[in-house]
């Protein structure tokens, strides 16, 4: 499944638009991934555990969106956008959405 965050693919043409698809996931942030997190809060620096966590969460959300697109028979999703919002103090929702299309080479 091709993912593009523009509304067109320069080397292809859109043969059919299949509608909007989205994937979302709510992930809690305090899963103790990065044991050093509280220590890092004192000295600063990258929280690699959290970076990985957010990556995984996003990949999962994308997978869900792709599943929706596949069920429509699409081979690409255009106009992919992300939206993150804080649901509770400890958890955030990651939403990814886009337009499912069928693309063919020009």
């Amino acid at each position: 499944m091709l993912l593009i965050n523009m509304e067109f693919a320069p080397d292809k043409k859109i043969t059919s638009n299949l509608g909007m698809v989205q994937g979302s996931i709510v992930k809690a942030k305090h899963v103790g991934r990065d044991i050093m997190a509280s220590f890092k809060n004192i000295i600063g620096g990258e929280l690699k555990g959290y970076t990985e966590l957010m990556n995984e969460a996003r990949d999962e959300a994308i997978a869900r969106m792709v599943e929706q697109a596949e069920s429509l028979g699409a081979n690409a999703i255009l106009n992919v956008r992300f939206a993150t919002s804080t649901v509770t103090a400890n958890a955030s929702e990651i939403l990814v959405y886009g337009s499912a299309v069928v693309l063919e080479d020009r």
Partner: protein
Amino acid sequence: MVMPIELFFLLGLLVLGYVAGRFNEKRHYRSIREGESRFRDLLVMNGRRLPPHLLKHQARMVSGNVVISVDYFKVILAALRNLVGGRVTSYESLIDRARREAVLRMQAEARELGAEAVFNLRYETSRISGDATRGVGSMEVLAYGTALIPPQ
């Protein structure tokens, strides 16, 4: 009131936060500048209009993200600022670093795919609270866009 031992402890954390924080920041900035010069020819733009020489390229979505934590000194400085108002310069550097690092990682992914440029760049920033009462514990920045890969 705060006992002297607590004050001493706080001061110790403050000093540790300042020293370690500044060291981390300097080191990070050096690596960012290095990365930026390495990727200087991998163009990153936030527009959607493509220049003519990229019109036949393949498109792929690429992204890069990073989560960076504050240090204790920044937190205290920001708390003081909150009382007075004005630019919270201690957090400005945090955002700047996170943003540029995220873009670099996105460029790395694009380069791996053999891309020439990344267009339609977008940012997503979210805060990860270390502690509900203290506000920002760390910031996450996601940078994503469309990598343009020359046709084979």
